[in-house]
């Protein structure tokens, strides 16, 4: 594949190295002359000095035949514009942007960027998985649908222990999928199924209903 990378910082550098190792054709666009020279000395002449948001620059390096453009500078706005120019001016099939502000993930997708990767979100997800006491854990995001599969733990002190599901105010947008009991025996979340201490409840929910779901299952 021919891949254009905008931004030769640490992320751009290691990304380029990995892609070259996999046998891809890579060109890096970087504004800073010193950074450019360093990359060219280490990885061979693959870095061009210039602004990756400028159409003339992108035309010069043949972005029209690129299979993918990845914008990994430290500034969200630069990454957005580089991806949009690639997409709308050069019809690059796949554009990937690195984002700093996790809230920009939805925005970037709406504005035509194919994949927006938030390092902040990735780290947050790992924190959630590593901390077992966290009451609501993300198991999987359903791409494009703003839905997530989550796990909610039922601990013994909760007021909801012993209550049947029909008595809990689970938001209608969320769907309980399965209850996994303390001994890994699972049962279906029927309206009459009662919660037990040690249960883990697997549910599908829109992101904005997560808090409501957690309160319904664990109490306020």
């Amino acid at each position, binding site marked *: 594949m021919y891949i254009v990378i905008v931004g030769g910082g640490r992320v751009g550098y290691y990304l380029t190295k990995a892609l070259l190792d996999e046998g891809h054709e890579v060109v890096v666009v970087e504004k800073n002359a010193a950074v450019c020279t360093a990359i060219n000395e280490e990885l061979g002449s693959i870095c061009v000095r210039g602004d990756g*948001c*400028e*159409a*003339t620059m992108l035309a010069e390096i043949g972005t029209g035949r690129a299979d993918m453009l990845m914008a990994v500078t430290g*500034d*969200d*706005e*630069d990454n*957005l*514009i580089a991806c*949009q*120019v690639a997409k*709308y*001016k050069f019809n690059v099939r796949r554009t990937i942007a690195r984002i700093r*502000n996790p*809230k920009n993930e939805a*925005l970037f997708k*709406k*504005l035509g960027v194919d994949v927006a990767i938030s390092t902040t979100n990735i780290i947050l997800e790992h924190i959630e998985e590593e901390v077992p006491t966290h009451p609501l854990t993300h198991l999987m995001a359903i791409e494009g649908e703003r839905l997530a599969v989550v796990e909610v733990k039922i601990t013994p002190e909760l007021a909801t222990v012993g209550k049947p599901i029909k008595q809990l105010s689970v938001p209608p947008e969320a769907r309980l999928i399965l209850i996994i009991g303390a001994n890994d025996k699972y049962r279906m979340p029927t309206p009459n199924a009662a919660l037990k201490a040690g249960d883990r409840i697997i549910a599908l929910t829109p992101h904005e209903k997560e808090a409501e779901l957690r309160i319904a299952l664990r109490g306020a």
Partner: protein
Amino acid sequence: MKVIIVGCGRVGAHLAGLLDAEGHEVTILDNDAYSFRRLSPTFGGTAQLGNGIDQEALKRAGIETADAFVVVTQGDNRNIMAAQIAKYIFNVPRVVCRIYDPLRQELYQALGLESICPTVVFADMLKEKLLGKV
């Protein structure tokens, strides 16, 4: 008319003064409080510290009820991004931004973003002045 201006540089501050004097409700946003020194002492609108590409900051500035949105920060990319947030996320009826790079302006104009390219406008004006057509 309720107007939000992002970027309190010379142009932003001057525009804020003009609109305020005409009785419009103006909120001007900048991420450096020192920039607000450029506002005229008679400016009666709101000066608010905040980042023009942060949706929370824009909400605090009242973007949800704004009639018009102008972005004139130093960075083309920041201007384009803020303008797109205003237009496509908050559906502000009138959005105008400044784009210095003529090529970038051309592309975003084609994509439906209203903008002014000072580079082209000013070069044209200079040329006409030099050639004595004004």
